[in-house]
């Protein structure tokens, strides 16, 4: 077995939230002990509702946010020892909104060539060739080189963002909701482009999304995040066929069905998302869990291995009554 391209070990990120001038600051555990492994060529789907820490995790992987605990490793080397530019060569982002991720005052050519200029790759006269080669690869006509982003459609803009992310040939690409700001008709084009590029360039993706259909289509593995923790991780097939964690089950049940008579499904997630400053004791999911046991409100569950993945839930604890 080879080393993972990107690995997080028990990574945490805690923000100190000021409650007022004379009140003590309180910790907010945005990401709380996340361990993930991305093998070369994998597409790891990261799902979870808004505010669960997906984007903070992505920022840490990009080196834009320092973890407050644990460590992140590229090919086994800790990220702490790497400088900004070394991280940039290994991991690049694709953002959700192609309308705000491109500088409106720069031409497409200058946006795509920015990484080459910053890292001084090759000679300045090669840059235009490399930009045009990259534009061909992402399916963007060369005549757009001197266009401004506002002259492009949403799909074309997202192709520019993809070209910018890939021109330095990174190992890992972090796609933060890459299609949710696009028209439905364009979404599949961008997803297929990402799939093709992965095979062609041997990329590894971390795909952050709340669109489960996209994740099922793209990902090889899926991690489900809830309140800063990964509660279940498994192969895409296993996770979608036999979801184990009650939260995963609820997420899958909440997907709209094409049958109109069935109406909007009830995910059984009655009460609102808990306040992350004041998370529930024990298993953080227990107030919303339909299958909560007595111990769930007292003891935090440990990860329980399950085939290729794991689940953090007392329901699957072989020694259920140990803590009770």
């Amino acid at each position, binding site marked *: 077995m080879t080393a993972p391209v990107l690995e997080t070990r028990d990574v945490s990120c805690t923000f100190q939230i000021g409650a007022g001038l004379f009140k003590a600051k309180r910790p907010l555990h945005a990401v709380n002990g996340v361990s993930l492994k991305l093998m070369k060529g994998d597409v790891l789907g990261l799902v979870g509702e808004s505010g669960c820490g997906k984007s903070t995790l992505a920022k840490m992987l990009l080196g834009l946010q320092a973890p407050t605990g644990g460590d992140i490793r590229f090919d086994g080397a800790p990220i702490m020892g790497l400088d900004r530019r070394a*991280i940039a060569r290994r991991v690049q982002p694709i953002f959700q909104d192609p309308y705000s*991720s491109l*500088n409106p005052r720069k031409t497409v050519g200058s946006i795509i060539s*920015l990484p080459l200029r910053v890292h001084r790759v090759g000679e300045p006269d090669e840059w235009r060739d490399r930009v045009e080669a990259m534009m061909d690869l992402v399916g963007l006509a060369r005549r757009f080189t001197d266009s401004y982003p*506002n002259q492009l459609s949403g799909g074309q803009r997202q192709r520019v963002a993809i070209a910018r992310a890939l021109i330095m040939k990174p190992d890992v690409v972090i796609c933060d909701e890459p299609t949710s700001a696009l028209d439905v008709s364009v979404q599949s084009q961008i997803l297929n482009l990402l799939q093709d590029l992965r095979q062609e360039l041997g990329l590894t993706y971390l795909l952050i999304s709340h669109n489960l259909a996209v994740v099922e289509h793209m990902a090889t593995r899926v991690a489900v995040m809830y309140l800063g923790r990964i509660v279940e991780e498994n192969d895409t097939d296993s996770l979608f066929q036999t979801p184990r964690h009650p939260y995963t089950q609820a997420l899958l049940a909440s997907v709209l069905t094409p049958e109109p008579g069935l109406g909007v499904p009830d995910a059984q997630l009655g009460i609102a998302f808990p306040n992350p400053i004041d998370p529930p004791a024990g298993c953080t999911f227990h107030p919303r869990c339909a299958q909560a046991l007595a111990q769930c409100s007292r003891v935090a569950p440990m990860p329980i291995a399950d085939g290729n993945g794991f689940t953090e839930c007392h329901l699957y604890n072989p020694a259920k009554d140990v803590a009770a």
Partner: protein
Amino acid sequence: MTAEALDSAKILEPSPVTQLRRRIFGHAGFLFGAIVIAAMLAMALLAPLLAPYDPYDQDLARRVINPIWHDDGKWAHPLGTDQLGRDYLSRVIYGVRISLLIGFATMIISGVLGTALGVVAGYFGGRVDMVITFLITTRLSMPVVLVALAVVALVGGSLTVVISVLGLLLWDRFAVVMRSATMQVRALDYVAAAQAIGCSAARIVTTEIMPNILNALIVVATLEMAHAILLEAALSFLGLGVQPPLPSWGLMVAEGKEYMFFSPWLITIPGVALFLLVLAINLLGDGIRDITAPENRN
């Protein structure tokens, strides 16, 4: 329908240059401002050629001659002469030099100071922002005219003193506007993308943020330039700005005020000149913003 009618080249949008030209000529305020400013600049540069007399030449035999629209006006002095017999047209022409010089120099000094502080505060945030916000608040709590009066009274009035005092006092609006504009742009994804690429903070500020806050900067710069010109006139009127015999418009109003009831044009002519210049600068600033705003670019 023929193939020619479907020719896509005919329905393509006009070229950027054409679009820009249309926007410029469709904006009356911008055109008016630009023409007046261009005329004033030409006057300032060509003053020795345009002015019929030396603005400092006194001729006590020809004091307070009425301008040409009075019955006894003479073409020798189209705008008449002042209380010391100096040709008023020449003084008005030379006066635009003082106003523009003070306006530009003050705008540049305060613009560099305020923009630097504002962008740094907006980009780095946190403690840096707190310190700079405190500086801005301190500056805002000082009354400009009183501080300027005090300094000029202590050091003595001269062109350099007026420019430095105003330059060091008028940076607050630059700082406030640039700070909030920077904070807005900084939160956008293209700044995060530039950070993820590994750009330095200096590069992000100069190539990603500055071009996108330039509109706001232009508007503030024109407002502050107009502000500085008016303040100079006010200080000179109070006798604490530019010193006689320099032909400053504010000073001309001050010198003419004793003759206000018998020769009101001694005040109205420099007053109208001042009003026109300030109006033109403000209209030009608004026009530049309207013409270059990205929301108009489509």
